[in-house]
């Protein structure tokens, strides 16, 4: 009997602090698998965000740097410019990348920094208690929009990936979802391709991952995957954007 599936070297054998059914755990594993398959564990530097994934560096067995809220891409830019032989990626949520860090994100993309960005979109601020994020869907209830998001007062869900795809400096933008076995395998491929782009000096690559937050969506884990399939991916269409 041979082990055909299990933890790879880059993923420490620890319990995560994430809620039951959270998509972060899956994406952590996919990142670790991609890094081990490309054999770049020794030269990878991750930049972790502020948000639910703030202690992601505990779960990965490679070098990481913690950044201030939203400033992940500014920190990553400095690391990559000082050590261009390293593979640098940021792991950011929607409150981090699309709200407080919008300026840093847009300018790093516009400069065409040779970085890989993994952007977790779960349509709420998870760490602080489920408040409305820029990516919250119209009509979606959250702690700060208890009657549902109203586009007249709170605006529309921000499609930051489409926005970044307009910029000349950006090499590739892809949106996937960890809502099924197929979706998870596709996400892994997208992450691996984004790393390969960086290793071939092609430029800024972003992978947006639609991920479940059963706790603040007030659903079971399985219902939340259904919600991604039926509601969220209608507003954030999946596939290669650039």
């Amino acid at each position, binding site marked *: *009997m*041979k*082990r*055909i*599936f*299990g*933890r790879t070297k880059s*993923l420490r054998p620890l*319990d*995560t602090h*994430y*809620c*039951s*059914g*959270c*998509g*972060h*755990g*899956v994406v952590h*594993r996919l990142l670790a698998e991609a890094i081990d398959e490309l054999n770049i564990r020794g030269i990878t530097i991750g930049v972790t965000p502020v948000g639910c994934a703030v202690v992601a560096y505990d779960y990965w067995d490679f070098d990481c740097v913690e950044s201030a809220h939203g400033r992940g891409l500014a920190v990553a830019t400095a690391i990559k410019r000082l050590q261009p032989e390293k593979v640098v990626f940021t792991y950011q949520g929607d409150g981090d990348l699309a709200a407080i860090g919008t300026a840093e994100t847009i300018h790093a993309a516009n400069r065409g920094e040779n970085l890989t960005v993994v952007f977790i979109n779960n349509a709420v601020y998870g760490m602080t208690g489920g408040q409305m994020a820029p990516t919250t869907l119209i009509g979606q209830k959250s702690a700060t929009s208890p009657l549902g998001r109203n586009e007249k007062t709170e605006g529309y869900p921000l499609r930051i990936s489409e926005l970044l795809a307009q910029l000349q400096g950006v090499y590739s933008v892809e949106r996937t979802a960890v809502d*099924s*076995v197929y979706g*998870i*395998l596709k996400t892994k491929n997208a992450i691996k391709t984004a790393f390969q782009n960086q290793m071939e000096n092609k430029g800024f690559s972003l992978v947006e991952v639609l991920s479940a937050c*059963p706790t603040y969506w007030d659903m*079971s*884990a*399985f219902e939340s*995957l259904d919600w991604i399939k039926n509601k969220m991916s209608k507003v954030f269409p999946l596939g290669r954007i650039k």
Partner: protein
Amino acid sequence: MAYIKLDQEKCKGCMLCIEVCPKGQLKPGVALNKKGINPVMFLAQDCSGCTFCAIICPDTAIEVYK
């Protein structure tokens, strides 16, 4: 026959593996783990080693052997 090793202490009971198993080899357990939740139980009757349960598991609690 293929089989899985399920780490009962890592399981958070989201039950996603139960939904994706094509052979219905997983079901909610009866004993509580240290986290105070019912971890999933493996029936070990007809596992094909498709790894679907391990792929969808958010806590990487499942190892698959074939």
